[in-house]
């Protein structure tokens, strides 16, 4: 290949990503220490006010009061994203195992069926759960028939169902890939040594599929941290998460610097997860 193209071929990708991702992210960092504009937006003046706002609110007499309101939002985000990841793991293991033990043709079909809903617009998928969980919906009616009170919607449970539904394909695929590589002889060896099925599952299958589970966890946890639609529609706006908090600051609340500060906290959380994962992958490479 011509030397010129080796350079020029990558230029459009770099320009696009610098212009829409890397430079904007740097500007977010700057705006997060800028002053709030009178009519939305921001003014170029240094202040730590946006970060102060995460922890403290200003009382009647201008004194700072510790206010855990936003810490709860951050905590809720971490708990719900973590719970989503755990539930996805528990669902993906048996499902991926069953798929991996089918005939090659059946495997292709089932994996295709797992990925397909992922291509349906997020807004439509979340809307579908809004109908199903609503008071007139299928699950909502069963809930009332069983004597349940109130509505299932606008609860953390409803958000969790929506989040697991949105991100489950991202867990099944890597777990399936890991289980497929498993040597069936190892499972038989476990049986020959009088291990029960569950001992084999715990001592043979689980350790060997761990890389798949770890990869899937990253793929689920990272987007779950920044999720917006589930808290907005299924949580009814009362159950704020970081994604919705950022969205409101740039929308109706018109406090860009505070929104930028929350966005930066979210970015730092994501980067920590990605760095930990990269280090794990590097250690694994060094061992083999």
């Amino acid at each position: 290949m011509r030397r010129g193209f080796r350079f020029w071929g990558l230029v459009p990708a770099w320009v696009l990503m610098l212009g829409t991702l890397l430079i904007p992210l740097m500007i977010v960092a700057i705006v997060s220490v800028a002053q709030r504009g009178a009519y939305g937006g921001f003014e170029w003046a240094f202040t730590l006010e946006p970060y102060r706002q995460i922890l403290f609110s200003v009382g009647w007499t201008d004194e700072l009061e510790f206010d855990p309101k936003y810490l709860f939002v951050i905590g809720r985000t971490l708990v719900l994203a973590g719970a989503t990841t755990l539930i996805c793991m528990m669902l993906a293991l048996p499902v991926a195992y069953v798929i991996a033990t089918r005939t090659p043709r059946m495997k292709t079909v089932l994996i295709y069926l797992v990925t397909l809903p992922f291509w349906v617009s997020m807004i439509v998928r979340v809307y579908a759960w809004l109908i199903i969980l609503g008071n007139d919906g299928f699950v909502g009616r069963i809930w009332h028939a069983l004597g349940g009170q109130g509505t299932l919607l606008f609860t953390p449970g409803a958000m969790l169902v929506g989040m697991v539904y949105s991100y489950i394909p991202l867990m099944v695929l890597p777990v399936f890939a890991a289980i497929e590589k498993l040597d069936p002889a190892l499972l038989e060896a476990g049986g020959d040594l009088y291990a029960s099925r569950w001992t084999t599952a715990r001592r043979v299958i689980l350790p060997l599929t761990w890389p798949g589970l770890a990869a899937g966890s990253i793929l689920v946890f990272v987007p779950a941290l920044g999720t917006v639609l589930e808290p907005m529609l299924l949580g009814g706006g009362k159950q704020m998460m970081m994604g919705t908090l950022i969205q409101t600051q740039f929308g109706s609340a018109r406090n860009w610097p505070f929104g930028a500060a929350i966005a930066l906290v979210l970015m730092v959380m994501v980067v920590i997860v990605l760095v930990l994962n990269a280090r794990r992958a590097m250690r694994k490479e060094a061992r083999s």
Partner: protein
Amino acid sequence: MSANHDVRHYPGAGLMTTVFFLWLYAPIVVVIWFSFNENRLVSVWSGFSTKWYTAALANDALMDALRVSLTVAGIATVISTTVALCAAMVLSRNSDLRFAKLSETVVNLPLLLPEIVVAVATLILFSQLEFTNGLLRLIVAHSAFCTPFAFLPIRARLQGMSADYEEAAQDLYATPFTAFRRVTLPLIMPGVFAGAMLAFVISMDDFITSNMLATGGTTTLPVYIFSLIKRGTTPELNAISTLLIVASLVIATLALALSARAMRRA
């Protein structure tokens, strides 16, 4: 050994998988099912009707949103596929390149970062530059996050193909560009089409970025659907959602089939 004593057989796992697939498709089926409901109330079935589709097709606001979505998705697909194709060509044929690994990460960056953070970041930059044309804003932002989806199938196709063909063409005095146009491009075309279709679907379906960057008059289909949900669920909303579901599923299926076939041939 009978199935019951086979250590590879887990009782209950099969049933759980069946339930899993029912759960996976129930929401999609519910939306499609109730779009044919004659009743005004979304979840009270009272007979088959296609009147909500007639109503949807006569809805001017919906048609405007559809036009915006198709324009943005069409242009963003062309841009992102071109960018991805150039990057994939360089990265697949020059593994010794400095910054190869970094460049690959940069191309895939939109997959690693939370969309809401990127959306507000882009909003800040655009408003600082006083870049206010809603349609262009959407096209630029969509081009960026569609690029990895176009990149991955093209990259996979190129990796499955030996560089011998191009070298043979160049030995026959084809210029590098001719070799690319007449030899490489036809061979990787299934990957390029698959990537373009996935990029198109991702752009058509996007809500978060479009909602953040849209200005008056550039409401995309998912943003319009969101505004309808806020006003309350109606069967017409189900009809519109069904149209989007069917379009997404058909295009995604074509793309996946194309790249699977290309992989088998390689």
